[in-house]
C-alpha cells in the first residue's frame, strides 16, 4: 500500500533524497519547508519522478515558528486526504567553532533542533494517535550518542532529540505510533560541504535507502550508513578518561 507521507525538510540533503525515493516508488508526498519557491520546484521535481502522474503538494512551515505547525499539518491533511507517515529531516547545523563564538546562533540551533522539533513531533503524535497510529521518522544524528569535543553543542541538541524519540517509542508503540530515530554519520550534502571528511562518509541517496527500509519495517533506531552502529557501540563503551584524550 502506498504511504501518505509528510516530509518536513524535503528540499535539501537527506530529506530531498528520501522524498525522491518515496515518490519514485509511488508513495504520496506532501512537502513542508521554509521557502515557498524552493518547495514549488521540489514538488515539481517529485511529480516528474513519480511513476504515475499525480500532483505533489507543499505548504510553508518553518521550524523557527511553532505557531505554524498545526496549520501546516492541517493543510497537509487536507491535501493528502489524511496521512500516515511523517518524516522530519529539517534542522540547523554549524561547526563547534562557530557555535562557540555565536551565542545567538547557538540559541537558535538548540531551539530548532530540540525544542521546536519536539513540539512539532508532539503535534504529529496527537494527529497520528487520533487516526489509530502511523509512523514518525525523525533524523537525529550520531553526534547525539555521547558528549564529544567536535560537537558539544550540536551533539547536545541531537542527544535531547534522540532521548525524546526513544521515550516516545516506548510510550506509544503499543498504541500504534511507530517512532523511528535516524542517526546518520557524515553525509555529503550542502550542510557538510567544505568540512573535512571523516571515514564512512555517505551519499544522501545511500542514507535515504536505509531510512526507507526502516520506515517500511518500523525499525526504532537506524544508523546510516549501518557501519555507524558498530562505531558508536564502541564509542559508547569508552571510559570518560579515554574520551577526554581523543579528538573524536
Amino acid at each position, binding site marked *: 500500500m502506498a504511504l501518505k507521507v509528510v516530509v518536513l525538510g524535503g528540499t535539501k540533503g537527506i530529506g530531498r533524497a528520501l522524498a525522491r525515493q518515496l515518490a519514485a516508488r509511488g508513495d504520496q508526498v506532501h512537502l513542508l519547508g521554509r521557502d515557498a519557491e524552493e518547495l514549488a520546484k521540489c514538488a515539481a521535481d517529485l511529480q516528474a519522478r513519480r511513476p504515475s502522474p499525480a500532483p505533489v503538494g507543499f505548504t510553508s512551515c518553518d521550524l523557527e515558528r511553532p505557531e505554524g505547525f498545526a496549520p501546516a499539518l492541517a493543510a497537509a491533511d487536507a491535501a493528502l486526504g489524511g496521512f500516515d507517515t511523517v518524516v522530519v529531516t529539517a534542522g540547523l547545523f554549524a561547526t563547534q567553532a562557530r557555535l562557540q563564538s555565536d551565542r545567538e546562533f547557538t540559541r537558535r540551533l538548540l531551539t530548532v533542533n530540540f525544542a521546536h522539533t519536539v513540539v512539532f513531533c508532539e503535534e504529529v503524535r496527537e494527529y497520528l494517535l487520533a487516526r489509530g497510529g502511523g509512523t514518525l521518522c525523525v533524523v537525529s544524528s550520531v553526534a547525539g550518542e555521547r558528549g564529544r569535543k567536535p560537537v558539544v553543542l550540536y551533539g547536545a541538541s541531537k542527544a535531547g532529540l534522540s532521548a525524546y524519540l526513544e521515550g516516545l517509542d516506548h510510550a506509544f508503540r503499543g498504541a500504534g505510533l511507530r517512532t523511528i530515530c535516524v542517526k546518520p554519520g557524515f553525509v*555529503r550534502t550542502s550542510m557538510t560541504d567544505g568540512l573535512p571528511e571523516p571515514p564512512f562518509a555517505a551519499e544522501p541517496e545511500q542514507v535515504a535507502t536505509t531510512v526507507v527500509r526502516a520506515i517500511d519495517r518500523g525499525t526504532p533506531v537506524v544508523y546510516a550508513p549501518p557501519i555507524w552502529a558498530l562505531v558508536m557501540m564502541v564509542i559508547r563503551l569508552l571510559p570518560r578518561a579515554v574520551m577526554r584524550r581523543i579528538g573524536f
Partner: protein
Amino acid sequence: MGNASHLRVAASNPAPERVPAGAERAGSLTGWGRVPVVSGYERRSEDLEAITRDVPLTRGLGRAYGDAALPAAPDRCIANSTLADRILRFDPGTGDIVAEAGVSLDLLYRTLLPRGWFTPVTPGTRFVTLGGMVASDVHGKNHHVDGCFGRHVTGLRLRVADGRIVTCSPTEHPDLFRATVGGMGLTGHILEVAFRLTRVPSPWIFQETQRLPDIDAFIEALKACAATWPMTMGWIDCLSKGRAMGRGVLFRGRWATAGEAPQAFPALGAPIPVPFTFPHGVLGRSTVRLFNEVYYRVPRPRAAVVHPKSFFYPLDVAGHWHRLYGPRGFTQYQCVLPASGGHGAARRFLEVVTRGSGASFLCVIKDCGAEGDGLLSFPKPGISIALDLAMRDDTQALVDQMNERVIAEGGRIYLAKDALTRPEHFRAMESRLDTFLDIRRTWDPQGRIRSAQSVRLFGW
C-alpha cells in the same frame, strides 16, 4: 579570474565557520583521464545560483577527460552542479523537459525510459550532467541522423560573467546560445536546460553486428548502413598494421519495436567498481593486442535484441574504469576527418597512430552528419575516430603528430577529450574560433569565466 578576485571569493563565503573558500582549503582535481592534476576544489550546493556567483567555472560529473573542467591557476575554487538536480517541468504529452544543470543522464534513463522517453542524443556514458552535455555539445551513435545534443536544446538559463542570470535560445540572445552550445562552459554557468525528449517504442535495442577486415571496408560499411540505420558505430583495432589495419566490428541499431522487445524493463544494476588503481602499464601493448584479437574473433550474434546499456554505455559496466590505466592516467584523443579529405583519410590517420608506440585499448569509429550550430561544436561531416592512450613520456609527441595529420586533412579535435593539444594546432583546426572568442569577449570582457583548458588553448 585573477588573484584579487580570488580573495573576494574568500571574503564573501557565506559560511565563515567552514574552511574558507580560498587557498587554505586543500585538494586537487583531475578530469576523467586523471591527468593533469591541478590544485583546487569544488563547492557543492543544491543552490547552484548561489555558488556560481564568484567562481570561474562550473563542473558536473567530471567526465571530461582532460582539463576542460579544471580551474586555471591561480583559481582554485569551482562550482559543482551535481546537487542541483531537479526536474523542474516535464510534459508527458510532448516530452518537453526543463531541468537543472546537474541532472544526470543516468537519472533521466532510470526515471523516464521506463515511461517511454529517452534523450534525443546520448554520449557513450550516462554519468554526465545536462550542463556538461550542452557545454560539450555531445554526440552519439545517431549523429548522422539527429545531430548533437545542442540541436534539441530549446533554451538555457545561464549565469554570465557579470553576475546576471540570462536566458538564451536559438531566438533569444542567439549569439550567446551558439557560443554556449559546445562552448565548454566558457560563456557562463549553465543553470537550467530545456529540451525535448524522444518517444521510443520500447526500452530495448535491436542490434546487428558485422566483422570487417580492414579500415577501407569498415568505412564503406559504415557509410552504407547510415542510410538505413538510425544508430551506428564501430570498434577498430588500432594495433594491426598493413592489410588488416583498422579491422573491426561494426554495430548498428535501432529501438526495438514493442513486438520484438521483451516485456520486462531492462534491469538497472549498478556499475561494478574497479577497486583500485592498476599498476602502470597493465594496459600495455601486449594486453591490448590480446584484447583486440579476442574482441575481433569472439563470436557474437549477427542480429539480436540487446540491453540499452550494453548498446549505449558498455564502459559504464565498470565504475572508475579509468583506474585501469594506472597512476599516470590516460588521455583520450578524438578527431573528425572530413569527408572532403577523400577516401584514404582514416587510413592515413591510422598510419600515424600505428607508427607511434602507444597502444589504444579503445578505438571507436563513427560517421558524423552535418555540423551543428554550436560555434565550437565538434562534429562535422566525415569520420570520427576516438582513441584511449595510456599516458607515457611520448604521448605529447604522438598527439602532436596526430594533430598535424588532422590539420592536413581539414579535421578537428573534440575539446571534451583533450588535454594535450597545442594552441597553434587548435587554431589551425578551428575556423570558427575568432567568432566564438568575440562573443565570449562581449559577454565576459574581463575573462572571469575560464578553465585550465581555455587558458592553455586561448590564453584566457
